[in-house]
């Protein structure tokens, strides 16, 4: 995850508390989604950014996960996300995201 984004997520978590922050990921690949999810939960696996060694343990989901999709207005989802949903390997993304959450 981009170092600046790591810093911003860290600041939000400190400002609002970890229970009131949900991170929504839009990465196009399972591996990239998993890495981003790992960064905001267990810490930066590349040890390069502000979240290196910092386990925020935030709630984290991908926009294409069924639980999130159900929360969004159907028309908006169709306009904004449905094209990508057709393109992405959603099962792989769900598996990666679940694997990270299972480690918490």
């Amino acid at each position: 995850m981009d170092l600046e984004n790591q810093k911003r997520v860290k600041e939000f978590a400190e400002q609002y508390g970890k229970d009131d922050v949900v991170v929504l990921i839009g990465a196009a690949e399972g591996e990239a989604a998993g890495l981003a999810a790992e960064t905001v939960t267990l810490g930066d696996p590349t040890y390069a950014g502000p979240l290196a060694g910092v386990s925020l343990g935030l709630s984290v989901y991908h926009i294409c996960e069924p639980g999130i999709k159900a929360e969004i207005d159907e028309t908006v989802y169709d306009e904004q996300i449905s094209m990508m949903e057709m393109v992405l390997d959603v099962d792989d993304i769900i598996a990666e995201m679940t694997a990270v959450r299972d480690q918490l």
Partner: protein
Amino acid sequence: MSGYAVLKGTAYTLAAAQDMVLYNGTTQTTERIVNPGSEYLTALPKHLRSFEEIVSYIPNQVYIGNASPDVLEGLALPWHDKRLPNSDELGTKGKFGEIISQDMFIGLMAISDAFDLVKLERSFAEQVREKLAKHELIGEEKSAPIAKNQESIEIITELVEKEHAEAIYFNGALVGAVKRAHDVDINLSAHVMLENLATKASSVFSLLCLLRSTGIDPGDVDYVIDCCEEACGDMNQRGGGNFAKAAAEIAGLHNATGSDVRGFCAAPAHAILSAASLVKAGTFKNVVVTAGGCTAKLGMNGRDHVKKGLPILEDVISGFSVLISENDGVSPVIRNDITGRHTVGTGSSPQAVISSLVTNALESKGLKITDIDKYSPEMQNPDITKPAGAGDVPESNYKMIAALAVKKGEIERTEIADFVKKHGMQGWAPTQGHIPSGVPYLGFAKDDIMAGKINKAMIIGKGSLFLGRMTNLFDGVSFVLEANSGETEGAKASDFDEKKVKGLIANAMKQLADSIMKE
């Protein structure tokens, strides 16, 4: 009648920059600050490729036009360990451009230096001068200024250690330095000057290759637009600019002026639209769009490549130049009336972005997504991006365009893979931001259109403006390149036009020759 500007020719160049990966790539310079003794920095030198390996790397051969993008179709990744069957015959020169070694590139930086900032150790300078003097595009006269470099290695060392100069290495040894251009101004620091001189030198080399590949007289170029991602200026005008005119001067385009167009990775598409509009409006006859590459992105994904036991694949500084001219009745036309725009109100979801760039443009002229034979979006080489977890960028773009065609009812969902194969290509361009952005295909598109293999291609430039922290917006523009109808402005189809007839005959002869060659 058609007053569209045409694509007259292209040039694509690469300069090997293995030592610059270590000392100038931001992934490495950042690591040296954050984690100086890291395993990555220790292992890195063993992962650098030789010049020969860089030259025979298949995507690089495609970039300079020695092989068609078709050679990458069905070629299993990884590509770094594969060679073309005729690899031994393919050299550093291709129909579009050339690959030069790092020492020659350092010499080009010295030639491109107008302020006596590049200092080279005397024996290295002489070796490089001799090599460049023998190069057909540089020669004795252009390489002569390198001879003024008479510095000893002690002087160079002192410049680096005491005078804040930026070191230049070749094969692991200190061979020169770029001095700072001001004692206090950070915009003229040695770091910035090296970065800007590298960009300028690679643009100069591409311009020289464009003169060779198009045969245009240097004095006939009226205007140059630079579209790289660097900024030059001092503390009072940080992005004051004009890389374009600076490079045009060294390339000998004595009748040209120019300016810089910026827009992150989308800049080349913006620049080509500007150039085509200037020509169509009759303001200028011959406009060149050019860009050098950047040192900062060298080894950008190096950490992942080293971790996976791969060579450092981001080891070249790229450049390209494109000549856009008045309609000659033969060359492909730039349809600047079929353009897509990501507007302020478009939104940032991929669906909104692709719709604004592809369908909005086509629907305005009653065209369908499937009417475009080939799309050229972000043509990053997947051999570089996939091991770094960034996926196959062109493929993702093609899938998105295909998914949009499904939503529009033009194809079935089951046809997405076929659409990607038919209307797409494998990526071959180095990951230098603006370099892979739509433009790498222009050279092949011109040839494919003139050979009658395709009729229409869409070039898509996309840019991440949020990186500059001025806006969270995304950006992009697109345009269509199309076969020339043979009609030029002011001539009706029924009128006899000698130039047009000659053009048509030339085109027919070329197609006949191509078909005979294929047989």
